[in-house]
């Protein structure tokens, strides 16, 4: 039987001499339903006797819960069930966390640890009635001192999130790779800087939603919802409710974006408890935007950095040290700690830096638990490294492009193992840089900058290169306590009686166009029209092992799964066709959609005909032959290794790279930043659907603009949230996002199906660093620089007050 090594690493390896779809900007199969409003998002689901949930949340950042009185709420006509922390304690376990031991129940039991933490919930005949009922619930709180600042949370005497630990430190470890002390001791130059990245987060336009149904007779739980990784959430619920995994069924619906955090564990658990208490009636909860901003998966990357690079006389970086204090918020329930681990996969960026150190502390505070967000940790890390490169360039009087040229991993060095242990598959970083410089007409751009400066205008150029680690692996997160190596993704390919193809997968639409990519790949494999391929999603109990989108992996993993399944199906077809052709299987092949005898062009029949024979002419089949024209393949990245004691592993399979150049102007009267021009040279190997890739890139630029200039979840010193609407938490609009000029480069991955690399996190890895470096380039004549994100007008204005007189 064929396996992962048989999957073609280029389009030329397909059994089709004229593929029509792979590499083309194919229109998306998912779009007609989306454009006509027919796609069924979770809030569109209506089930018989369905109830609606509303959740009462803590207004305090830290408070003991003395009493909860739900008697009046329960009496309100239309209310069917009410749950509190007592129900959660009786019927569920605290959620599992990474690192372990820092989790709570879905409803606060003894105390509330952050503003927005669920305290009680109601199921009623409408959301309106459920929200009325919340006003009738009485909660007696005893306010406790709160800690909002990670540095203060480390001090003795700080309020404790979990008293049983005796401190707020979730994880503290120093990872050392190579002789970093020697590198700094012998350095000719050292550049050191502190950085502050403030909290921001995913904010998909659709918030999380779920409909849970607890069958109280047969003890099963069915949850429909916008789950990014349905099996992951199903597994966690089985653990929370002490249920066998096969009694938990998750059905993921198409969702309106995710960017890392879609899943809503607490809301799922709360609706499950309400359904159980309501005798099994389905209970729907749709998170509203304020709930999302205060209590959802809306915040990530709350970081204090102190970092340095060591350089020799030639500007070659010999060592890189990062000390990170990562504020994960009230619990570790949201997998946010993984974001502190992922920088190991691209720690030293595009550069050949032999020694590095990561001094990592993850601390708990009374803020919302951190969640994943697109990029999953490296975007702030990349900013730190790229800004240090710029500072070094200024110190050594190099152009920012030149210092990067001197440090790139050369193209002939691949596959290349970086100091922190991951292996980069391929790339040509110099080519990306030179392409971007040419696109921007860099010398002219610098001349223009000088000219504008002479007119008293402060324009800056940002030029950065980054790696986008693709095809995530659990082993990358071993240092924060995540078990496992390998992330299986399965697909089933079936041919029906009428000769059409169906691909069955374990994930719902999310926006990246994955169903279209799967159909492109299969249509080219069997040389059929793409309209003959349909892609359907299965639930957790019927799909093959799966994870779904995440960590820039699905395009690669799904291509592997579809091609692997197609190859296994072809073997079945060949076995049957060999009987029909009165020969043996080794003489039969698939070629351009026909199953035929090798070397005999006329001895062939359409592959569909072989499948039809299997399904409808058992009289022609020999005994013992498999009559099912359907095959499944579960792809997982080959060659992954478990992490060693310093966290080193072959983890993410691919390393895409990009160079961004941006021109910004800082208006020193209003302290606003205007992005004037933006160029991107991007290499993610084979582009399966270039329009999809461009969309991912441009979408990443937009989120990068938000990160650099606008987005910040603000808490006051009492840990009270100040940004609970889109009037306070600012998302980028068309007024802020630049229309970019993009050029594609291609160094195919030598390791992946068709040579594709992960590209889903797009420009989020690069854009924040590019813009922030550009702002500091603009401010350089004033003798000031900003090392805090976002670069809001208020921050820049404050900085300008201390600037050199103009």
């Amino acid at each position, binding site marked *: 039987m064929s396996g992962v090594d048989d999957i073609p690493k280029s389009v030329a390896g397909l059994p089709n001499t004229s593929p029509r779809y792979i590499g083309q900007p194919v229109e*998306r199969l998912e779009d007609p339903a989306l454009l006509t409003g027919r796609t069924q998002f979770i809030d569109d689901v209506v089930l018989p006797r369905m109830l609606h949930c509303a959740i009462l949340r803590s207004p305090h950042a830290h408070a003991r819960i003395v009493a909860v009185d739900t008697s009046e709420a329960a009496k309100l006509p239309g209310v069917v069930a009410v749950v509190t922390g007592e129900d959660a304690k009786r019927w569920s376990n605290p959620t599992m966390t990474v690192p372990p031991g820092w989790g709570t129940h879905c409803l606060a039991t003894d105390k509330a640890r952050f503003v927005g933490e669920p305290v009680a919930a109601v199921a009623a005949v409408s959301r309106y009635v459920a929200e009325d009922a919340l006003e009738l619930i009485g909660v007696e709180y005893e306010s406790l001192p709160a800690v909002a600042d990670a540095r203060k949370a480390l001090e003795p005497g700080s309020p404790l999130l979990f008293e049983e630990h005796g401190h707020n430190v979730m994880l503290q470890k120093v990872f050392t790779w190579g002789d970093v002390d020697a590198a700094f001791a012998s350095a000719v130059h050292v550049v050191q800087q502190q950085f502050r990245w403030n909290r921001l987060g995913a904010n998909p336009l659709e918030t999380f939603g779920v409909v849970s149904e607890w069958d109280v007779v047969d003890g099963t739980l069915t949850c429909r919802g916008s789950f990014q990784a349905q099996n992951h959430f199903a597994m966690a619920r089985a653990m929370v409710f002490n249920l066998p995994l096969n009694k938990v069924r998750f059905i993921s619906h198409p969702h*309106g974006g995710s960017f890392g955090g879609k899943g809503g564990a607490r809301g799922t658990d709360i609706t499950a408890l309400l359904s159980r208490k309501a005798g099994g009636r389905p209970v729907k909860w749709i998170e509203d935007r304020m709930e999302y901003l205060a209590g959802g998966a809306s915040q990530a990357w709350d970081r204090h950095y102190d970092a340095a690079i060591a350089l020799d006389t030639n500007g070659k970086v010999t060592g890189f040290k990062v000390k990170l204090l990562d504020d994960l918020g009230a619990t570790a329930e949201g997998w946010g700690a993984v974001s502190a681990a992922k920088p190991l996969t691209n720690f030293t960026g595009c550069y050949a830096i032999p020694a590095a150190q990561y001094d990592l502390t993850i601390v708990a505070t009374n803020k919302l638990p951190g969640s994943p967000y697109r990029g999953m940790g490296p975007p702030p890390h990349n900013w730190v490294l790229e800004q240090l490169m710029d500072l070094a360039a200024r110190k050594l009087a190099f152009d920012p492009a030149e210092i990067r040229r001197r440090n790139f991993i050369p193209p002939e060095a691949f596959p290349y193992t970086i100091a922190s242990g991951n292996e980069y598959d391929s790339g040509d970083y110099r080519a990306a840089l030179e392409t971007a410089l040419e696109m921007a007409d860099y010398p002219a751009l610098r001349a223009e900058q000088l000219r504008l400066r002479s007119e008293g205008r402060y324009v800056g150029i940002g030029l950065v290169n980054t790696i986008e680690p693709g095809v995530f692996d659990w082993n990358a997160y071993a240092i924060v306590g995540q078990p496992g190596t390998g992330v299986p993704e399965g697909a089933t390919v079936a041919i029906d009686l009428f000769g059409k193809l169906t691909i069955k997968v374990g994930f719902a639409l*999310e926006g990246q166009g994955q169903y279209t990519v799967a159909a492109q790949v299969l249509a080219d494999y069997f040389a059929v029209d793409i309209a003959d391929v349909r892609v359907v999603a299965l639930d957790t109990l019927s799909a093959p092992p799966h994870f779904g989108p995440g960590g820039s992996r699905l395009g690669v993993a799904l291509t592997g799964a579809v091609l692997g399944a197609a190859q296994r199906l072809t073997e079945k077809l060949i076995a049957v066709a060999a009987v029909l052709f009165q020969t043996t299987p080794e003489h039969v092949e698939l070629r351009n959609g026909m199953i035929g005898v090798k070397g005999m062009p006329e001895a062939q029949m359409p592959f569909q005909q072989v499948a039809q024979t299997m399904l409808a002419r058992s009289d022609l089949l020999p005994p013992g032959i498999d009559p099912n024209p359907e095959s499944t393949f579960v792809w997982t990245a080959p060659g992954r290794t478990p992490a060693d004691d310093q966290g080193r592993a072959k983890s993410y399979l691919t390393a895409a790279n990009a160079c961004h150049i941006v021109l910004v102007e800082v208006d020193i009267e209003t302290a606003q930043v205007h992005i004037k021009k933006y160029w991107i040279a991007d290499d993610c190997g084979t582009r399966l659907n270039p329009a999809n890739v461009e969309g991912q890139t441009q979408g990443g630029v937009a989120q990068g603009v938000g990160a650099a200039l606008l987005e910040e979840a603000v808490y006051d010193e009492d840990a009270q949230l100040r940004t609970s609407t889109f009037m306070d938490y600012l998302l980028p609009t068309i007024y802020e996002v630049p229309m970019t000029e993009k050029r594609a480069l291609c160094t195919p991955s030598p390791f992946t199906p068709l040579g594709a690399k992960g590209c889903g996190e797009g420009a989020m890895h690069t854009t924040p660093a590019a813009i922030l470096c550009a702002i500091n380039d603009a401010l350089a004549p004033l003798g000031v620089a900003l090392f805090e994100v976002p670069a809001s007008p208020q921050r820049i204005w404050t900085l300008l007050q201390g600037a050199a007189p103009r």
Partner: protein
Amino acid sequence: MTTTRRIGMTVNGERHEAEVEVRTTLVDFLRGTLGLTGTHVGCEHGVCGACTVLWNGKAVRSCIMLAVQADGAEVKTVEGLADGATLHPIQQAFLEKHGLQCGFCTPGFMMSIHELLTRTSAPTDDEIVDTLGGHICRCTGYQAIVEAVHLAVEKMRASK
């Protein structure tokens, strides 16, 4: 608290009458009472634009408008854009230009663009930006949406 009122409105050319609680928002009425779930709720406070529908030809946020305010009105939603199996030129342009990813914000964008292109067949770049500026898309970074608007303008001009 639960005062009700009988209202009537024409939605996508079809007349509807219903008894509604006066506190019911227009978007909840369209989605919940009429089952027109193509209009989406993104923020429920009038910022993101996902819930945009046409109210007597004008693009409005149906999440911050009450159903009773639309009593007697002509309302158009995304379900009213296509002509049977034929996509509206705006929908077709979004399809061809990859002007959407998750598609959640898209109905709202298309209704505002529909209002713009009903008002003028030759919008300026500034008019296009100002129309899209009232909407948030978290996926696309807007570039493909701008391209889709230009293509829709061409398509609508050609069909006249």
